[in-house]
């Protein structure tokens, strides 16, 4: 079974990095690329298995069945990979591989690089661990691995004050959020005695108590912190611009998705789906989604720093995804809920690709022109035609122009919000208006009159061009056949996600 290798290979890569760095830079870089390429291979194999068989994969660590001898409750940690987890794992491995490839060239002038590659592999490992685990405390441990690796990587350039300040703010907010999540998990263990998500769903369904609701509130609060919802998004608008661009591509594209959105969805749909009045939780998530939508995109318009603009637009897009999940929760049984959820999941994958591309282009511009300030960067298209083309594709996709992949997922969210409650559709469209305004402004600076900061800018090296090229082709391919993707991948994902009964029987029924 290939599933354990999804964790073994990055772990092997991370632990052996100090040894490989003894053999010199070339060997270390090649080893990092090899490990992330292998992880991508394993992730696509796992995704293909789950997708072709439409079967939930349950893998117990340490025995064949999770249940103890002669008892009906699970006692071991188990992995429970459904289509949603496998899809996000594939996105993580794909964007992670491109980020490692990109940072070979981009981080060439930095010091302390063998620690950098250790941290980037561990960041990818943490996210992969979150996405496949079926045990709540294990989810917390891998959330901490991901968070600690991202704290260190945000502040990796310790000789710049932005890096240190953003790192400290990100660390304190992140640690508070993790403490909330640990408190929620502790309360759940205290009340129900088990840590396995599926058996917890059974116990909560049997006697939903006040402790269960308080724990859900704490977990939701912690995870909204982690996914950068509005009242607590300040860390995100500082951390993502200050990090090196290959890292902010992974941060914006993957970390807030695997550590925030995926966890929110898994807890809401696989543990608590039937045992709470799901409408209020749905409306709560919708409220935060709309708030994030408006504030994120509105703040993006007024930014002068390119990467801060992208960071705020990430906050805005997270608002879309939260809106989709909120409607999916509020209209739980109906067709509208399915469409909204399919749109949210589809948008998670799309946004990961789009935002990674945008941050990689910003990195290329920063690498060559040396400045992020939009006012000084006008007219860069003449000097760096390919990067500007890449930026154009990314901006068009994120705004939602038809031939590219952003259109399909945003359209699903519009459609479901319009059907469910026209007021939400109005907010969603307003958000897109702000987003379009922000990106048009950047496009104009790209194609304006060349300024002096841009004189000596030229195309970046090959290792930075290839990831951008791959991302462009991925976005265009996903854009050309959106409805096939939606029907064959996204809707089955939604069905498996909402099928809580099967999620539970796969474990408790003795896999």
């Amino acid at each position, binding site marked *: 079974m290939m599933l354990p290798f999804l964790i073994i290979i990055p772990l092997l890569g991370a632990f052996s990095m100090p040894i490989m760095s003894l053999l010199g830079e070339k060997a270390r870089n090649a080893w990092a690329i090899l490990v992330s390429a292998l992880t991508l291979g394993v992730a696509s194999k796992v995704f293909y298995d789950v997708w072709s068989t439409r079967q939930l994969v349950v893998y117990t660590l340490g025995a064949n069945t999770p249940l103890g001898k002669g008892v009906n409750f699970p*006692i071991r*940690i188990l992995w429970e990979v459904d289509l949603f987890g496998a899809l996000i794992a594939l996105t993580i491995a794909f964007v992670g591989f491109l980020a490692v490839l990109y940072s070979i060239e981009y981080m060439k002038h930095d010091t302390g690089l063998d620690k950098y590659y250790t941290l980037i592999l561990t960041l990818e490992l943490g996210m992969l661990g979150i996405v496949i685990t079926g045990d709540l405390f294990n989810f917390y441990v891998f959330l901490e691995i991901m968070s*600690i690796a991202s*704290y260190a990587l945000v502040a990796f350039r310790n000789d710049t004050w932005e890096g240190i300040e953003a790192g400290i703010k990100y660390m304190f907010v992140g640690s508070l959020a993790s403490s909330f999540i640990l408190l929620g998990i502790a309360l759940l263990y205290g009340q129900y005695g088990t840590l396995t998500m599926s058996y917890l769903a059974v116990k909560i369904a049997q006697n939903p108590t006040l402790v269960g609701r308080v724990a859900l509130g704490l977990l939701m609060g912690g995870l909204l912190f982690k996914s950068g919802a509005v009242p607590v998004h300040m860390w995100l608008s500082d951390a993502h611009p200050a990090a090196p661009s290959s890292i902010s591509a992974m941060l914006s594209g993957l970390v807030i998705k695997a550590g925030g959105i995926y966890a929110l969805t898994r807890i809401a749909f696989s543990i608590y789906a039937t045992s709470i009045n799901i409408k209020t939780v749905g409306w709560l998530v919708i409220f935060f989604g709309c708030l994030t939508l408006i504030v994120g995109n509105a703040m993006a318009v007024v930014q002068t720093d390119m990467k801060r603009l992208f960071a705020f637009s990430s906050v805005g897009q997270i608002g879309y995804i939260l809106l989709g999940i909120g409607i999916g929760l509020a209209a739980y049984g109906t067709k509208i809920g399915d469409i909204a959820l399919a749109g949210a999941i589809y948008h998670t994958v799309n946004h990961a690709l789009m935002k990674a591309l945008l941050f990689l282009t910003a990195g290329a511009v920063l690498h060559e022109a040396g400045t992020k300030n939009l006012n000084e960067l006008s007219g860069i298209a003449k000097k760096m035609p390919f990067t500007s083309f890449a930026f154009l594709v990314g901006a068009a996709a994120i705004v939602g122009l038809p031939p590219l992949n952003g259109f399909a997922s945003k359209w699903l969210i519009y459609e479901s919000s319009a059907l469910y409650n026209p007021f939400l559709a109005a907010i969603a469209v307003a958000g897109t208006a702000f987003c379009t305004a922000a990106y048009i402004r950047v496009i104009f600076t790209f194609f304006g009159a060349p300024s002096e900061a841009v004189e000596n800018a030229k195309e970046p090296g090959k290792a930075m061009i290839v990831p951008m090229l791959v991302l462009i082709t991925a976005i265009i391919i996903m854009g050309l056949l959106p409805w096939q993707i939606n029907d064959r991948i996204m809707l089955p994902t939604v069905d498996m996600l909402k099928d809580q009964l099967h999620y539970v029987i796969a474990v408790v029924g003795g896999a």
Partner: protein
Amino acid sequence: MKRTFGALALLFILGVLLIVAHPNYGLKFGLGGKEWQGYRYTDQYYIEHGIEEVGGTNIVTDIVFDYRGYDTIGEATVLFTAIAGAVALLRRWREDYE
């Protein structure tokens, strides 16, 4: 303004948690025979089957390394990452090399 909002939220959380800690609304402390079986059935399983399934007489280490060994390898990775991060953050600045 932000502080007072934060303080109010904090007091609210403390109040909710204290309600949850009350025996007849939520969590119980010092559980006895039948209640112990009801609430801590997994602990009871480990105490009874720990030795024959793992072989170590220290049940906590049995759990840490065999039943929940995957947590501990995640744990070792957390330690590995934090040490790599701390050493990376405390390295020389680029200007120190001149």
